């Protein structure tokens, strides 16, 4: 009756969570954004998401085989990388570029560091940075949503853009900064930006869908409020100050929040636990860093959007933040 009893360290029970369940929660939270992408960009959304997910998972599998490591695709982290990469590229990005981005994201962004948990930078952002550096034109060509132009077409074989393109709110905002006028035009699009009926990356146009997903993550306690709140607050404060300086040149804080990748960055990318600090204090610093650097790039930089670079920069200093923000034990430091 007592054959094969096992011996191990306490505790002998667990909450029965698994990494896969945590990752599944994130995928569920990304569903509204994916649905919004499908609504606004139709077949492009389906093709891009499927391409990125399949190539990301395949790359992880291949890397495991090459490194003779146990298969790790079952934790679904590669699926998330694929989805986030797909949601953060322009809707009419060619399939081959999406494949290159996904392969780079997983192979160089994650697997060379040793796989899940060991990467310094968010893999999806590494992939996107690679695409931006390599195919700058493709990564900045925006199409209007299909709800405005049902015949939105694809890029033709000669890399010639054949679609009805539209400047994104952030491009207009950059223009406004340069010409010192026209911020109102952007501010007037606020409702469209909230719903997502504007030009932009596949999954970042609809603020509503992203907020729904973010709320789900918070309710499930998969993420804590610290990082999103820090990003949003610091960006809003920055925008408000700029707005006070010159209302004509700088768009309103709300317009900044609902445009570009700020919300997807705040809720889904900056909160990637692997690349964010562990302590609450560290999370505040990290989030404020992301929000402030994003706004610096948006307002003073050459690029219209800065979420990707700000997250990558803050990822880089995360180990330092963790070292600086080492929590003090509940009983204070021991007297040594």
């Amino acid at each position, binding site marked *: 009756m007592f054959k094969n009893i096992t011996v*191990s360290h*306490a505790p002998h029970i*667990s909450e029965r969570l698994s990494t896969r369940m945590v990752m599944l929660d994130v995928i569920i939270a990304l569903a509204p954004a994916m649905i919004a992408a499908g609504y606004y960009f139709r077949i492009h959304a389906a093709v891009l998401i499927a391409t990125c997910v399949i190539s990301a998972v395949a790359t992880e599998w291949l890397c495991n085989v090459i490194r003779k490591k146990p298969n790790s695709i079952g934790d679904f982290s590669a699926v998330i990388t694929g989805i986030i990469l797909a949601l953060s590229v322009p809707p009419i990005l060619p399939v081959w570029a999406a494949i290159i981005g996904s392969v780079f994201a997983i192979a160089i962004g994650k697997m060379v560091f040793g796989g899940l948990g060991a990467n310094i930078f968010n893999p999806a952002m590494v992939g996107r940075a690679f695409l931006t550096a390599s195919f700058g034109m493709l990564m900045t060509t925006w199409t209007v949503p299909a709800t405005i132009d049902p015949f939105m077409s694809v890029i033709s074989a000669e890399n010639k853009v054949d679609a009805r393109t539209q400047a994104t709110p952030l491009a207009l905002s950059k223009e406004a900064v340069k010409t010192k006028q026209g911020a109102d035009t952007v501010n007037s699009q606020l409702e469209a930006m909230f719903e997502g009926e504007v030009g932009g990356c596949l999954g970042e146009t609809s603020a509503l869908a992203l907020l729904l997903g973010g709320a789900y993550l918070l309710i499930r306690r998969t993420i804590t409020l610290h990082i999103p709140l820090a990003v949003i607050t610091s960006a809003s404060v920055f925008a408000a100050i700029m707005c006070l300086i010159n209302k004509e040149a700088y768009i309103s804080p709300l317009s900044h929040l609902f445009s570009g990748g700020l919300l997807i960055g705040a809720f889904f990318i900056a909160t990637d636990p692997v690349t964010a600090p562990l302590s609450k204090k560290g999370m505040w610093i990290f989030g404020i860093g992301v929000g402030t650097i994003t706004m610096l790039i948006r307002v003073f930089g050459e690029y219209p959007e800065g979420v990707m670079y700000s997250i990558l920069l803050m990822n880089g200093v995360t180990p330092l933040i963790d070292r600086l923000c080492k929590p003090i034990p*509940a009983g204070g430091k*021991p007297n040594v």
Partner: protein
Amino acid sequence: MKTDIKSRFSFPGGTHPPQNKNLTSESPIQPGSAVKQVAIMLSQHTGAACRPTVKKADTVQAGQKIGDSDSFVSAPVHSPVNGKVKEISLQSHAVLGRSMAIVIEADAENNPPKEPACDKFTSSFDAEKYSVEQICAAIRDGGLVGMGGAGFPTSVKVEPNPKLPKETLIINGCECEPYITCDYRIMLEWTHQIIAGVKLAKKVTGCKKVFIAIEDNKPQAIETLSQVLRNDDIEVVVVKTKYPQGGERQLIKAVLNKTVRTGGIPPMIGVVVLNVATAAAIAEAVVCGQPLTHRVVTVTGEAIANPGNYYTAIGTTIGELVEFCGGITQKAAKVILGGPMMGIAAADLTTPITKTTGAITILTKQQIGDAKFTGRQTACIRCGRCVEACPENLVPTTIAHAVKNNLLDVAKNYYLTACIECGCCSYVCPANIELTGYIKTGKILLAKQEKRMPA
């Protein structure tokens, strides 16, 4: 009194494992098995181990002292039965592997089962009849140790110490560990004995203020004690049901909102914490002159045929006790001395119970869960759940990974030694990493290293 008491007194961090106390919470304390043989460990407590004071083939009486030590931090051991010393040899020990024990063969005819002392106490108990010296001597001679788990000799805790005057006494009736109900049953059935013990402890420690802390998931115990104590200056404090609420440091935080310094002990801030079972043992030792030879043990787990709370002789083996409870009905995966959060998995059913064993929990594979059973660990995704759950505000994952990679200096730098080993971090980890296990290992390695190479 209302039964839906909710308390906000608590501490930061912690977890909420399923309680599973209903298996035994309604089962009254019953006499344990009539033992044929007991093995009394010479080290059942924190501190110096005892030397045997009897020899092989000596005849011993129930309650006779059979091992003692001259060390200040130690407690003597006594025989629970009339019988003969069979041998003094190495026996299975849950923590130490093998340890010296006195094996006593019980006299088959002359061994009436020991009755609990609870009937000898009434509400009119007066602690003033006993002098401080008398109480101190009875506690030391009775071999009393903390019965909640750590087993720190009670005499050391309560003895008057002019350097560290004590002001507050907290009686710990939290029993935050899942499955275990022995303290709960004692509070319901031995109420007057506990209160007598509390009064004696108050007298000997010289504390002005006395609290009895009970988690809000035990409304019946709260009601019983509040009823009896309504005219006393002993206060029943209801604390939140959260693991590890019964941890000494966490309890002090919850009841007094005071913090014991890292590496410090409660007397440094004038606090003494005693378990309810210890309080009951104090009453028995002082008033009846009975040493600590028996205790209530909860034998529990879904696999046990007759789970319950048994008044058992210390030194009874796990196997004997389990058999007495009707054996098991399903295939057991783990036999734990204590509860599932902090208990120690026994490899050998001949391991005897000690003064600190509050429960024997038998878990099946289903209750442990597949991941925990197979021990498959995946990579840390730094989700921070362990940081959130840690009641001592440490970073368990950093410490554990430092230990894993043999970086003891890093682990120490992240306050490895401040860990109270409650197991919350391992419990919540989605990657199923044995964080507590690594940290415990690191503590042992560090202690060895520092002894070898004094700074």
